[in-house]
């Protein structure tokens, strides 16, 4: 174990009060100056049991930090409520069933370093993630035999399959295999091309857009200017709805409300164009 990466205190929790350890630090790719921040949370199950799964978690973006997964979603200490200022113990932490490895990837994300300022793509990110995983195993060899699962959400829908493919190819070439068992992807981006149409259909199905709102331009050609106009109108209309949780609360910063007048003007313009829908829009509003 990497003793220098051992987390002894994670405010307000003293780690000696728990039956698992947390490690946090950097994993570096040897052929570049990039270093990746990781947090490794041991399972609450028997730590010496090689049957306990290891789960590599990636948040999406592209470019979003996996610390969200650690401190808001599946880690042992989380902000349970949106407005909480201190961490609470998470009764449903996924480390009740597995070891958790949170990786901030690609480099340049979260606390990770990207001194080269390179432009990333899906393939390169997958290559780097494999190298970082190998680095993890070299630092923590006792987990090499544990079943590995890849998990994450959103743009991890792209990260995860590509990393799995790299692992498969690596396993085909090497004797020391990575024990990949499966993957779990939540609200994953599998194809950015049809995502805008799905968003519009979903918004219509859930009455976030007026019943007569016409999305056919996007169904015909998602890259057309007409579709851009449809997307813009939809964006204006749904601006005050939390897109990530349509029944949830929408938080705004003070400075984000400065465009209030502009927004109202756009809404009025939209209603004038679609004046036959004014009553319906108002009712829904």
């Amino acid at each position, binding site marked *: 174990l990497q003793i220098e990466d051992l*987390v002894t*205190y*994670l*405010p307000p929790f003293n780690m000696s009060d728990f039956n698992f350890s947390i490690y*946090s630090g*950097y994993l570096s790719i040897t052929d570049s100056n990039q270093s990746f921040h990781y947090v490794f949370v041991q399972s609450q199950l028997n730590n010496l049991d090689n049957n306990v*799964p290891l789960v590599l978690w990636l948040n999406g*973006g592209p*470019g*979003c*930090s996996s*610390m*969200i997964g650690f401190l*808001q*979603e599946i880690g042992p200490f*989380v*902000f349970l409520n*949106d*407005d909480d*200022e201190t961490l609470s113990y998470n009764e*449903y932490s996924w480390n009740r*069933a*597995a070891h958790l490895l949170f990786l901030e990837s*690609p480099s*340049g*994300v*979260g*606390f990770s*370093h*990207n001194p080269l*300022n390179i*432009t*990333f*793509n*899906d393939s390169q990110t997958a290559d780097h993630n494999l190298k970082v995983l190998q680095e993890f195993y070299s630092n923590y060899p006792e987990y090499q035999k544990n079943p590995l699962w890849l998990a994450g*959400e959103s743009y991890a829908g792209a990260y995860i*399959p*590509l990393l799995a*493919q790299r692992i*498969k190819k690596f396993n085909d070439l090497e004797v020391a295999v990575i024990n*990949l068992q*499966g993957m*779990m*992807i*939540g*609200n994953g981006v*599998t*194809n950015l*091309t*049809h*995502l805008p149409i*799905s*968003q519009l*259909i979903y918004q219509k199905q859930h009455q976030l857009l007026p019943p007569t709102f016409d999305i056919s331009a996007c169904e015909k050609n998602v890259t057309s200017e007409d579709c851009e106009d449809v997307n813009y109108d939809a964006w204006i209309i749904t*601006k005050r*709805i*939390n*897109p*990530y*949780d349509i029944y949830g609360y929408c938080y705004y910063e003070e400075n984000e409300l400065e465009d209030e007048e502009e927004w109202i003007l756009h809404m009025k313009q939209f209603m004038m164009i679609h004046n036959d829908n004014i009553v319906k829009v108002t009712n829904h509003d």
Partner: protein
Amino acid sequence: LGVPCVQIDNIENYLNNQQVKQYLHVDESIQWFLCSKQHNKQFKYVSDPPLVMKVLQELLNYNLYNILLYNGDADSVVPWIDTMQALQKLQVTITEEWRPYYVKNNQLGGYTQGYSNKLRFVTVRGAGHMVPQNDRITAFYLFNQTLLGQAF
């Protein structure tokens, strides 16, 4: 457009606290942001949508790995119908028809459909984009059952 409406003040304050950075052994000079694309102009990313679908199909063809695709059904950013659309484009067959599943005192957790090649699709009723944050009990249940290879 960033991540509108999401409350991250608490995590941002926490991770940018110098003491917390020391406890986590991270570079104290780095300002933590939720998403680099919105805050760091030097961070650039180019996506390749066709490649992702191709690789997903390749993995399914190996028939080696269990794949769970789950969607909180209150998310409009990556809606569950988008995942369904992807599933329809993949060369897999339905092995178990769309059915409800139950958690938390036999309440409806959502719906699930089984596919060939070790693939399963699940919705989580009422959860948004961040399923484990929105519905911790159901998310852990799905996670644990999947790891154990048990039905839900």
